[in-house]
């Protein structure tokens, strides 16, 4: 919709995410922070066993497993996470977009926070993309993703493939730009504050 107002030069079509040369466990680079310690997570074990190839990166922070998944494998992985008896992530707590401009090859990131109340586990799933490349919607898996994905589109400008109604949700329909991008000035751009009457 409004990718042109991005100051960055248009990115080349995003290559598939780097197939993670370092093993997932190699997240600890320097002095390992005790908070980054790996915790045992049955869901993660199952995920590694079944969809190990889809996992780009696995990190931990304060007991929260952070899993990065390739864009193409998102829907199968998510469906698996919802349906597998040892995962049972029935509750998509929230999902949101983050803009990380310094990571030029895939600056936009979608984070899905899953909670499984039958097994009481928390899991954060991440998927990276660019402004041009849509990622598949998970609103068919969890209807609650509908509005959250709209908000991600509204605020950061991620496109979702197969979303039933991908329109702006919080901002007016004729707004240009995506305010939660890092380069969007805090005070807004001139002309943002139109008088609506």
């Amino acid at each position: 919709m409004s990718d042109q107002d991005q100051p960055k030069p248009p990115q080349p079509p995003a290559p598939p995410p780097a197939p993670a040369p370092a093993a997932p466990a190699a997240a600890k680079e320097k002095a390992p922070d005790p908070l980054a310690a790996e915790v045992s997570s049955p869901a993660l074990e199952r995920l590694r066993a079944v969809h190990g190839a889809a996992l780009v990166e696995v990190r931990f922070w304060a007991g929260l497993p952070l899993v990065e998944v390739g864009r193409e494998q998102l829907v199968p992985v998510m469906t698996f996470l919802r349906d597998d008896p040892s995962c049972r992530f029935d509750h998509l707590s929230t999902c949101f977009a983050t803009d990380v401009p310094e990571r030029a090859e895939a600056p936009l990131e979608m984070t899905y926070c899953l909670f499984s109340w039958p097994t009481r586990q928390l899991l954060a799933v991440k998927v990276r993309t660019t402004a041009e490349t849509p990622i598949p919607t998970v609103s068919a898996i969890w209807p609650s993703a509908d509005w959250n994905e709209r908000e991600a589109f509204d605020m950061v400008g991620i496109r979702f493939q197969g979303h039933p109604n991908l329109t702006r949700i919080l901002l007016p329909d004729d707004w240009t730009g995506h305010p939660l991008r890092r380069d969007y000035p805090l005070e807004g751009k001139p002309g943002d504050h139109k008088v609506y009457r």
Partner: protein
Amino acid sequence: MYQTSELEINMGPQHPATHGVLRLVLRLDGETIVEVKPVIGYLHRGVEKLSENRGYRSVTPLTDRLDYCAAFAENHSYVGAVEKLLGVEVPPRAQAMRVVLAELQRIASHLIWLATHGLDIGAMTIFLYAFREREKCLDLFEGYCGARLTYNALRIGGVPQEFPDGWTEALRRFLDELPTRIAQYETLLTGNRIWRLRTEGVGVIDARTALGLGLTGPTLRGSGVDYDVRKYAPYENYRDYAFDIPVGSKGDTYDRYLIRMEEMRQSRRIILQALEALPDGPILAKVAGRIRPPKGAEAYFMTESPRGEMSVYLVSDGTDKPYRVRFRSPCFNNLQGLPTLSKGHMVADVVALIGSIDIVLGCVDR
């Protein structure tokens, strides 16, 4: 066959029953709802963007303005997320004090829900009765932190101060009075035929659909799911207290009403337990003056706000400002269920349903 033409009306953004600046585009066939389209964003203040440009401590006052009917719950969720990000352990005394305040906030918030929900359905007296008791809650909060609505009553690592002298006694007096007051409300509403006609069978949602739509809090529990963060992912020292999670059986507005009434009683029970066993010790953990979590640190902290699961996701980039703050607002997700809930009902039911899912627009729009 003869068909009446459909009428499209705008309910809101300025409408007495939309609890703020919610706009609903209703397509009506006579008085029956064909479609409801919530249009939100009228109260969007960009809190997530603002938070990215402030220090970790300065974000707390912003959270007050999210759900201004339950500001403490929002403070709590954010502060808890920062503590989780830093790995700070909150002293037990502070934890118990937080529980007291959080449950008091739950009572206050449920009272304002009861007031407005009743008024929406036309019971006007309940409005003033519930506000009378809510005033007492606000007085207590004022006594604790000096503010009546936007408390900013938490510090990263604990609570800012002890309960003032006489405060717990005042709280106990309020709690002693509360059951009789709740009984009065129930006399006015629970058995009232009109109230039951208006709420029973209205907005029925089954557990699976509710869960899929991301409903949480009493709105979900009305459908029989006992998902409550206080039980399923306990924070502070909720593990230490005995309390029940009321669940409904039919998932209609009346069940949700009963659940919230019962939750007020359960909150009272928790507060009394917490006051009874208030541990001694410090109330503020040691936290560095300048909060700079390491790069790549991410934390997700869930709390049970009066309206449902209120969670905060924090991402740090190693500076003293959060890189990304995500407020998972219960109202935003609960409002998403409104079109499903109100399908096939009448205009008057939409009003009842807005009250029943208990939204605060500040929380929806952030």
